[in-house]
């Protein structure tokens, strides 16, 4: 496990150049659709901006993670509310994290996860308030739609929410990590493809439902790690999927991310929301980077409506063909994340990116 030292963020967010990096989960993103394999992208973009806002799918690499002092770990449902201007983000020095373990996890696997949490406390000094078991197995189910996207559901959402309430009210948790038992079948074609760095992450859709549910109900940070039995050794494993085969648990990255995830404040109750140096509103966002073929999410539609700079990356292909132009989104198309970084730096510097090309169109007269 990688475990560098942390230091608290020291940003003054207003007037900073702030970028959101979106890489949707469960739609087979060529970069970021596997095991934390968009983390290198986030690391580079974080160096090009004052503040990077992104989500767990980008930053979670099972037992691998990388601390980025100017990067905010924001769950997808909260990103949607943030983009809509309904919630603001309040960076924190630390959160006390509570851990929910699905009662459907076998005793040995449950103990592995408790020990992983203990390791994160002892080795990284992260504050956990404790763990609780759901009062019944959550019974996660997986499905894949005809568009190829992964979806899933939790039969006993009430049980999940009761467990979160225990951690918040009795334990004082400020963020919630969930480990749910996921169905598994090592022989499925989808899993084999995923291990080869192809296809869609079948678990992703259900994982999002779990974290979205808790964030919607309790308005605090949440992230999820699936509990699965270790897979048989595969000598042809793709590097993009390899992070999930390092051990028994995907929990460490979740606990690290949640330990410093910003809190969510509803816009109407945020004091001096546009002037406080500790609050980030959607107005602070300068640009949003997204895969070009997955532009149909709530957050992106809202940011496009607000006139934010949308940078659409063509290299990061997905199973979808929802391109910005079809939805009336004015986007800058770039080929790669390398080009996106150049565009962002140019925008940040106030330099017209067209001037960095060998040729550009002449000025035209604007008629009365």
């Amino acid at each position: 496990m990688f475990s560098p030292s942390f230091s608290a963020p020291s940003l003054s967010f207003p007037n900073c150049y702030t970028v959101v990096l979106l890489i949707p989960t469960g739609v087979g993103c060529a970069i970021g659709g596997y095991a934390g394999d968009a983390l290198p992208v986030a690391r580079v973009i974080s160096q090009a901006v004052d503040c990077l806002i992104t989500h767990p799918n980008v930053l979670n690499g099972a037992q691998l993670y990388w601390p980025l002092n100017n990067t905010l770990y924001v769950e997808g449902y909260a990103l949607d509310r943030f983009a809509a201007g309904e919630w603001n983000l309040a960076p924190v020095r630390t959160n006390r994290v509570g851990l929910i373990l699905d009662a459907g996890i076998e005793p040995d696997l449950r103990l592995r996860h408790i020990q992983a949490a203990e390791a994160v406390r002892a080795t990284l000094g992260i504050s956990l308030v404790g763990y609780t078991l759901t009062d019944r197995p959550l019974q996660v189910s997986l499905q894949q739609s005809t568009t190829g996207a992964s979806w899933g559901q939790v039969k006993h959402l009430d049980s999940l929410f009761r467990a979160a309430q225990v951690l918040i009210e009795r334990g004082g948790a400020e963020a919630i990590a969930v480990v749910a038992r996921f169905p598994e079948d090592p022989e499925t074609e989808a899993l084999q493809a995923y291990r080869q760095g192809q296809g869609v992450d079948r678990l992703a859709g259900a994982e999002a439902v779990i974290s979205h549910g808790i964030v919607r109900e309790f308005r605090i940070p949440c992230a999820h790690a699936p509990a699965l039995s270790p897979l048989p050794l595969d000598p042809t494993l793709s590097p993009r999927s390899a992070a999930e085969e390092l051990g028994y648990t995907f929990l460490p990255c979740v606990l690290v991310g949640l330990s410093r995830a910003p809190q969510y404040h509803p816009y109407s109750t945020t004091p001096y929301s546009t002037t406080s140096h500790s609050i980030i509103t959607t107005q602070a966002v300068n640009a949003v980077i997204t895969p070009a073929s997955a532009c149909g999410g709530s957050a992106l539609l809202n940011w496009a409506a607000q006139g934010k700079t949308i940078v659409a990356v063509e290299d990061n292909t997905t199973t979808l063909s929802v391109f910005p132009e079809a939805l009336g989104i004015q986007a800058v198309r770039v080929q790669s994340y390398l080009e996106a970084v150049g565009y962002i730096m140019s925008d940040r510097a106030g330099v017209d990116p067209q001037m960095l090309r060998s040729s550009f169109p002449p000025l035209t007269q604007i008629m009365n």
Partner: protein
Amino acid sequence: MTPSPQTRSIQSHTQSGTQSDLKPDVQPDTLQSSFVTLEIPLEDSPGKMEMAIQAALRQWGDPLRWAVMAVDVANQLVKVEAIVTHPLPPEPLLSLG
């Protein structure tokens, strides 16, 4: 706009009922989720599109996660997939007559 996250308190889940997989001290489920697929008209701006999708999904429940999965420009339609949540109907009371 999605309702406030605090509007549905878990402690308020007190409806009666029986379910076969319940332990005696476990409260019954009051909430369930559904996978929804919709086709709705393509709007001429992203802001209108977002609002139209939210409104369409609210007819099926409380939207939890959704995305546009396809755009049919020729027919001016978008295909949306979503997970929505909605209350479970209460178990019918047993007749004692």
